[in-house]
């Protein structure tokens, strides 16, 4: 068991583990709803679209997280605008805003010579640069996410499975949608420091997607997603330790790899149980 205990006995590694586990918890909790509602593209676009906000905040010495939140808000409004005014499907608006924001981010960075060296940090994050203060932020984000999901549980549920009915029940689907997007933004902006804007989306979508392969009910799905997220974080860190790979990218990659492993195992076990049956 040395391969497990050696790395994790280091206080520094424990801190990285706790920080990443909190990040993945926030991401997987809201990610479950994103997966259920098929908002994956929206999540991906938001995750990448915060880049110009971070770049501008850096250039003018503002808080990076506030910059990211502003960019996410701007994007959400823009997507809404395209959807309603141009009468295009929502995914077209998302696509336009997504590439537009990402391009803007790179343009801003290319005009800031002293800044571009941390482009890598924004895109891929710095799991290993996590500090004690970051853990507090991550813990707060996880707590807020969990509380809000509990409060809005019924609204989220109806919104996910029967949007028309939500209106009838007086559950205000518009508000629920907005709250959901806000939680998504929270997950993105609090974990971009850990895994980066390019990779944070892996933690939002991969663990819930994996959970959806093995469980059906939404609460179980959230719990299972968090469990798969933890598994990805722990094994990603261990692989980074033993194989000398970049930690954030390894975690994100492992979370996706787990999805395919579980999918394969499910296929194998369902074939074994029902020989010759159509699936």
């Amino acid at each position, binding site marked *: 068991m040395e*391969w497990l205990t050696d790395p994790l006995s280091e206080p*520094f590694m424990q801190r990285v583990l706790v920080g990443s586990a909190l990040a993945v918890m926030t991401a997987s909790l809201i990610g479950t709803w994103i997966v259920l509602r098929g908002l994956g593209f929206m999540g991906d676009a938001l995750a990448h679209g915060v880049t110009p906000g971070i770049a501008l905040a850096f250039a003018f010495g503002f808080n990076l997280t506030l910059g990211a939140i502003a960019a996410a808000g701007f994007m959400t409004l823009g997507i809404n605008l395209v959807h309603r005014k141009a009468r295009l499907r929502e995914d077209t608006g998302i696509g336009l805003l997504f590439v537009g924001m990402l391009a803007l981010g790179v343009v801003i960075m*290319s005009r800031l010579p*002293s800044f571009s060296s941390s482009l*890598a940090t924004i895109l891929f994050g710095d799991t290993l*640069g996590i500090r*004690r203060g970051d853990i507090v932020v991550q813990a707060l984000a996880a707590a807020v996410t969990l509380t809000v999901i509990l409060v809005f549980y019924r609204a989220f549920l109806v919104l996910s499975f029967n949007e028309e009915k939500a209106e009838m029940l007086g559950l205000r689907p518009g508000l629920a949608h907005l709250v959901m997007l806000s939680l998504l933004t929270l997950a993105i902006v609090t974990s971009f420091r850990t895994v980066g804007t390019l990779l944070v989306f892996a933690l939002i979508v991969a663990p819930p997607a994996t959970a959806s392969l093995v469980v059906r009910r939404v609460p179980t799905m959230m719990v299972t997603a968090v469990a798969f997220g933890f598994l990805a974080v722990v094994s990603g860190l*261990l692989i*980074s330790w033993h194989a000398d790979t970049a930690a954030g990218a390894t975690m994100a990659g492992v979370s996706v790899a787990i999805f395919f492993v579980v999918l394969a195992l499910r296929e194998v076990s369902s074939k074994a149980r029902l020989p010759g049956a159509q699936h």
Partner: protein
Amino acid sequence: MERFVVLTVVLAIVGSACSGAGAGGDDRPLVIATTTILGDVVANAAGDAVQVEVLMPVGADPHDFAPSARQAARLRDAALVVANGIGLEGALLDVIDAAEQDGVLVIRVGELLSPKPVVAAWASEEASNGLDPHVWMDPLRVAEAVDLTADRVHSATGVDISDSAAAYRARILDLHEEITLMIETVPAERRKMITNHFSFGYYADRYGIKLLGTVIPAATTGAETSAADFAALVDLLEQERVSVIFGSTAEPTSLADTLAEEVGYEVKVVKLYTGSLGEVGSGAENYIDMMRLSTRLIVENL
């Protein structure tokens, strides 16, 4: 449920298969350097008195290198971490800062060597904010870095390395003499360079070479070139009849290659070792040889 068991077992097997060897039983104080170049300088300055480890592998672009979990944890074992600073280790900065916050002694040696802003004769105002991190391209600054590091090693570990440091410093001063003489063989009017990114500022300054321009308009490899910059460079090349662009082995030079094609005559892209030492057999396995090799290639191609 059984599939979870299977999954756990599979992961456990994968995990144990990757398990590596633990740390060796070395009692000497540990000094960790970020770049291969700093690692070589520190190892030479310290002799055998301390154990020197280097974070970046040979050939890595120091602007992009991201450490593994083990390396980040290893930083906490170091008596001293020698970093370049001035934003050079772009993807490593937070990791080093976090280690420093945990009580690890860090010396950002570049920041102590009177760094200069990135300024270029051709550039408009926006290219001049920020300091140039490539301090090691000036041997005299490296000689000073040797002294600074030796002091810091002494105060951090109690090990006195001043003798080996002085000997290495003398070798670097010899290197400086050698480079000066080599550059003097180039006629003064031909001492002008176009480089891939802004990495030769200190070198050009020290040895009286005029930097005409850079392909990437910044001191880091992460920035991008605008269309106008690119067009201006093509004009510049043709106007000055420059037939060589100096790139680095640790970074992509695709833009420099394109530039070479755009110009109406043959332009060579010469790759120098600047951001990292070379592989064994490259002739740039250590700092002194690296600088010697780069100078030889510069002199041959100007």
